[in-house]
């Protein structure tokens, strides 16, 4: 009972904060709202008994990534009026065509399969404990897990290449 209330509370908070991220003109305000979004998402994970995922959400996204975001915003000292919209050539075309395409497909699917809105999908009950996650990561998901470390290595190399001074 109380879980349901908590769910609705955090779900609404998540969505509201996510909207704030988009409409907030102040970059810091948007970033802080994003932190709030992650926090309430973590709360939703807790309600699903996925404690590990929840705390990882907080440690990684709220605690590390967003700190760096805000750090960069502060370094650039972006003020609301300094942020101007810049467009890429052909931007409109891409946006428009992609949006039309998606809208068409969704409409097609919607009119064809109205029952969607009356049925739900059954999710698997899964344990979100550290032991369960750890075992999965090192057995079934070993290859993606290891490849993710390659991915991170590639990202680090890339950041170093692009950020360092050009070789003279």
């Amino acid at each position, binding site marked *: 009972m109380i879980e349901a209330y908590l769910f609705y509370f955090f779900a609404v908070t998540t969505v509201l904060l996510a909207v704030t991220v988009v409409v907030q003109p102040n970059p810091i305000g948007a970033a802080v709202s994003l932190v709030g979004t992650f926090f309430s998402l973590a709360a939703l994970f807790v309600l699903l008994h996925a404690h590990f995922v929840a705390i990882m959400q907080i440690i990684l996204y709220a605690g590390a990534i967003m700190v760096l975001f805000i750090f960069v915003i502060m370094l650039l000292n972006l003020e609301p009026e300094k942020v101007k919209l810049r467009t890429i050539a052909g931007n409109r075309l891409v946006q428009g065509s992609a949006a039309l395409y998606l809208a068409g497909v969704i409409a097609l*699917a919607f009119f064809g*399969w109205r029952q969607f809105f009356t049925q739900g*999908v059954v999710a698997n009950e899964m344990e979100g404990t550290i032991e369960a996650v750890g075992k999965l990561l090192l057995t079934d998901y070993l290859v993606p897990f290891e490849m993710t470390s*390659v991915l991170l290595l590639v990202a680090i190399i890339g950041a170093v290449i692009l950020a360092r001074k050009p070789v003279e």
Partner: protein
Amino acid sequence: MESLLNTDWLALAYNELPLLLLIVGGTLVLLADLWWPQHILPRWARRKSATVDVHVPDRTPLLLFGMLAALVAFIACWRLWVQHEMPNQMGMLVIDRFSLVGGMMIIGSTIAGLALGWGYLFQHKLPIGEYTVLMLFATAGAWCMISSANLLLAFVGIEILSISAYVLAGMDTKNRLSVESGLKYFLLGAVASAFLLFGIAFFYGATGTLSLVGFTNDGIMQAPTSQFYLILGTAFFLVGIGFKVALAPFHTWTPDVYEGAPIPVTAWFASAVKAAAFLLFARVMLVVLPLMPALGTQLIAGLAIATMFIGNMAALWQDNIKRLLAYSSIAHAGYAALALVTMATIPEAGITSLLWYLMSYSVMTIGAFAVVQLLGRDGEELTSVGALAGLGERHPWLAACLSIFLLSLAGLPPTVGFMAKYYLLANLVAAGHWGLTIAAIISSLISVGYYSYPIVVMYFRPVANQTPHNSMNVGVPIRLVIFFAALAVLVAGIFPDRLMSFIQNSVLL
């Protein structure tokens, strides 16, 4: 613990030898790059000499090591191809001849890409070690894409490949165009990845599994709810993968990125990245299309037609040879998508024609870019088509090679481009898509217009100003690449039987 021990690690390692070799090779290059001497002269000599030590040591041997690693991986692929008659699934990886042929294709392109970097990177003061490492890791990512039995692993592979590609495109930080291309590629690519991820999430919603094998034999599959999710997932997936392979409404990044990136990188983009994305596309569509044949086919066919015409029409107005080849690459993505349409009705023929088409396209586009790169001088790339004037007299062999590649791209006999297109269209007709075939032929005819433009310039336009012949970017590897590419284009175009049967042997569904 038990399940950890139950896995046959040795067998997994043996079957994934190409992947391991690529990653280990990349790591070794990274370490070698770290400990490479910083200066040519020893410390005491540097102190004494008044001139600043401008000569940084040439790290080109790292490229050689990278090529060696890729070559060993290629041979490992070949060994596995010989051994694996039937598909063999281990955990999330599936080893079948389809993925092995794809792997060989991509690793071959990577070897060519590394060879093209020889000399070029040093001249343009680009980081050689990182170039090699990123190429090798990206190839490992591509391997994960094409031999994955699970969408999760495939996505990780896509990201490895994409992030390496963003960095490679923007690598030349002194060149504004290169930075622009890297940034554009990154921003749009990130959005595309998000679409792809959404698509995968909806596939999961539809089937309750991320495994491509478990996709079809799942009871939930037929329920209307999951059909809805499936269509939604396919739509998102098409947007994402359409970006990665440059299908029509999502192609706009291609010319800018291909123009801005260093030429070896561009050649590698057009061959390896495109092939990897297409093979993943095919693998996913192989299981998705049978579930929704009509709609899926129509969607892909629509994208293919738009891509072919937009690519070919836009290329007609290009005066920059890199942009011209970029639009040509878009158009070819359209042709290759036709193979996927074929796949909906006759899967084996579709896959065969896709592999055949991608293979031939990789070879000819690498060749064309290699010639363009060879013509650059003094650290400047040759970009305008007009600069080709008089090439037929100055460098008859190079001009001949470029002509061969362009004719092959246009799909004229006796080149491999013709054979690939012929086989593709023949299968398309067999699948009963007459309209699509005619559209493809028309757009092909349009394309002859712009492919012949550089040829005409090379042989028939008088040289306007007699610029002295500066030394070209000499390098044995790049000449070898051009030679082998031209040889392959001609031989496979005239005697396609052996290669054809090799590919057909690889497609056992």
